[in-house]
């Protein structure tokens, strides 16, 4: 019988060390994308407030939709979509970068969904008289928000990085399966208990100014999402790199 062990091999290349150019932290610490995104958002808000006519029927409060809807589009479809896809992908290809993407999408998505959950009731209060009316979409958003929060609490509760990535990927994948069921359940529930009439901002005949403001607002929020996502991802990369160094 032979028992042999060969000479040392150097530490393997960290999956995060060779990062793409658009992910590298600028030496001067200036995040251009973030500045552009912030300006775009401010521009969108200004445009919505001062340069877009108020809706004849609903009044000035309707303008909250210029924040509410883009936040929903970005927070629900894009952030949660990214979270779901990267969770499933991680289980298939165990790449740490995918895990960091999931983590970042979850946190940034939580913020955007939070915006949806605060702007929704503000609108609801002014038009229905109640802060919360268990409207289908808003209720679904609330459940999703709680789900993503639980996901982040899970991540915080697991010690080892490898376990954390794996376990949260399982939860994320199952959450992806859950979303259609939540939507179905809430819609069915609402079908039995007719809700106050909600004005759907995607009315077929929106005046041009409103449409462009919506478009502008959506693009601005999208830029903000990408900027925040990238910032959060970089932070996660640096944190993991430091943790790896400390444990070596």
């Amino acid at each position, binding site marked *: 019988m032979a028992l042999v062990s060969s000479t040392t091999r150097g530490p393997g290349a960290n999956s995060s060390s060779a990062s793409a150019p658009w992910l590298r932290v600028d030496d001067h610490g200036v995040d251009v994308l973030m500045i552009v995104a912030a300006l775009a958002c401010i521009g969108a808000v200004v445009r919505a407030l001062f340069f877009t006519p108020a809706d004849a029927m609903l009044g000035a409060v309707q303008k909250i939709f210029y924040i509410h809807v883009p936040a929903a589009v970005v927070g629900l479809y894009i952030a949660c979509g990214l979270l779901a896809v990267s969770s499933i992908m991680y*289980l298939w290809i165990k790449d740490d970068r995918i895990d960091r993407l999931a983590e970042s999408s979850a946190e940034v998505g939580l913020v955007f969904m939070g915006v949806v959950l605060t702007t929704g009731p503000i609108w609801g209060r002014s038009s229905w008289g109640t802060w919360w009316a268990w409207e289908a979409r808003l209720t679904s958003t609330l*459940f*999703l928000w*709680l*789900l993503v*929060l*639980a996901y982040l*609490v*899970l991540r915080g*509760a*697991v*010690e080892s990085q490898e*376990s954390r990535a*794996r*376990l949260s*990927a*399982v*939860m994320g*994948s*199952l*959450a992806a*399966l*859950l979303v259609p*069921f*939540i939507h*179905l*359940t809430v819609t*069915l*529930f609402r079908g*039995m208990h007719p809700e106050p009439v909600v004005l759907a901002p995607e009315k077929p005949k929106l005046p041009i100014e409103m449409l462009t403001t919506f478009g502008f607002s959506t693009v601005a929020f999208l830029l903000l999402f990408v900027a925040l996502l990238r910032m959060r991802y970089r932070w996660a990369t640096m944190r993991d790199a430091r943790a790896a160094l400390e444990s070596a």
Partner: protein
Amino acid sequence: MTRSHRAPRFLTDAWQVARKDLLIEFRTRSAFLAASVFAVLAVVIFRFTWDPTGIPAFELAPGVLWVIFTFAGLLGLNRSFALEQQDRAFDALLASQMSRESIFAGKVMANLVFVAAVQALALPAVVLFFDLSVGPDWWAVVVIILLASVGLSAVGTLFAAIASNTRLAELLLPMMTLPFFVPLVIPAAQASALIMRGQPIGDGLAWLKVLVAFDLVFVSACVVAFPFTIEE
């Protein structure tokens, strides 16, 4: 190889695991007692804070029932993996010839029996305390409860496996599972309310479909996901 062993068999192995879990729970009875006490307390509190002239019994009872089932179920779920961790008994299970899937199925079965035992206690208590009239369609309520319990056990067991790897298992388990219970509890409560109100079962068909669909999708998904929750 000598013929002194048999090959691993899914149902046999799962049953062995389930039997072991149930035997342990039967010996210690701690989780079942906690769940029963909770159930009785909940029924009493709901009963005495309820104004019979305001809301009819069959409007309140399903909600009460499902609050009890859900939280009592959670009490049992935690211990499902806690008992494996005490002396690393889980390592022995994993190193054995049994498949991961059969281990999971066994634990789900044990949790299902646990939940059913609590339900067998809580359901008569609710019927009694709330003076519900047991109509000819009572079997439908039992079927609904069973369907929802299957989904509850499968999802709950999987998340119990995940939570057992964390520091905050008792807090984390409810946080993770309650959103998943929504498509189970709402349809089950709505459908039960329907039947208690005296409406024909056909009216609740949509809810039943959601329950069945959830069970099919999530029982398979959890069986597939379980091996990923184990350290490798």
